[in-house]
């Protein structure tokens, strides 16, 4: 057992900055409905500064973002029950008067272009036109029109009442790591 003590391979600084970003909950790994429910509950346990309104928004934003990773991540694994589920990252941190949600997962570059465009459209619209955009996309989806549908991101922007912050980092020639961040205020909402 007496082995020469290697330099610590893991970096303390990684932990150090992890600690200082006042992270409440962070998770990387497989995401399915069970994991979503448990992580969701944990998030609600530690986001107590905002009132019920904030908690309700946090839960809704979490459910949509986590579902996106579960269903659309290009990195996946097989769980014990044989189901193949997406792998992704989720970080909830607290800064000042708001909570920040970041989710991230590997995506195929081919699929990511429509998502980026959708986010840019979402960020360009005021609330009423965003609601109209949701109605239109929902109707198109119900009529089975192509590449309509994913109204999750629209819902996230409406619920959070703040723009979607997108970041794309290339992983290899045909894949990148897509991260979506959104802020939820602890108390000042449209009609609070």
């Amino acid at each position: 057992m007496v082995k020469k003590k290697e330099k610590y391979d893991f970096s303390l600084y990684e932990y150090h900055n992890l600690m200082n970003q006042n992270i409440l909950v962070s998770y990387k790994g497989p995401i399915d409905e069970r994991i979503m429910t448990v992580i969701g509950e944990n998030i609600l346990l530690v986001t107590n500064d905002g009132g019920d309104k904030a908690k309700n928004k946090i839960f809704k934003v979490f459910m949509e973002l986590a579902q996106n990773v579960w269903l659309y991540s290009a990195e996946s694994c097989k769980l014990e029950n044989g189901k193949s589920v997406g792998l992704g990252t989720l970080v909830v941190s607290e800064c000042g008067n708001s909570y920040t949600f970041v989710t991230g997962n590997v995506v195929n570059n081919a699929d990511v272009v429509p998502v980026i465009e959708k986010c840019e459209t979402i960020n360009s619209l005021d609330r009423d036109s965003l609601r109209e955009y949701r109605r239109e996309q929902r109707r198109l989806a119900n009529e089975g029109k192509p590449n309509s549908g994913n109204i999750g991101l629209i819902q996230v922007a409406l619920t959070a009442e703040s723009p979607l912050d997108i970041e794309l980092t290339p992983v290899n020639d045909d894949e990148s790591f897509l991260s979506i961040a959104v802020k939820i205020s602890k108390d000042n909402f449209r009609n609070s």
Partner: protein
Amino acid sequence: MESVNTNKRRATDNVCISYTGLFDSEILTILAQGIEGTLTSNDKVTKKVFKIFLELAQNISQYSLEREPNSSGESMGVGTMLIKEYDDYFQFSTGNKTTMESIIPVIEKCDNINSMTREKLREYRRLQRNMPASQKGGGNIGLIQVALTADNPIEYGVVKCEDNNYFYIVSVKINK
């Protein structure tokens, strides 16, 4: 499936699974399930990581200074757990807040553990196991078990936090 994920993981940050937050029994189940799901190696190594995870994660929920009530109101430890995959080993690390007084005996135990041959370490485990838990240092054989299971030294680090408590990190390599 195995190689696809592994190189993707290397490209991102080598992390197979990581969690920061409240360590209650439900989270432990999820992380355990995640370990079995994402560790793309043979059963023997996965079982080692699993055993180490159960020991270290339970340490966090019991001993972390930072605590939060879980859904049924019991106070649970808050901490961090990280499993990184490299070509020939997994790196398993945990971190949680602590005070200097409570961490000194643990650091001494780690140094003690790292200085022993495997035979000596087994003897140390037998000795500690038969000491009543109340006796100082007696009882907690979790770290000894981790060293034996990993068959590698226990690396540790202590980082001062703003609130002049400390953040204590334990990390161990598990060869593939």
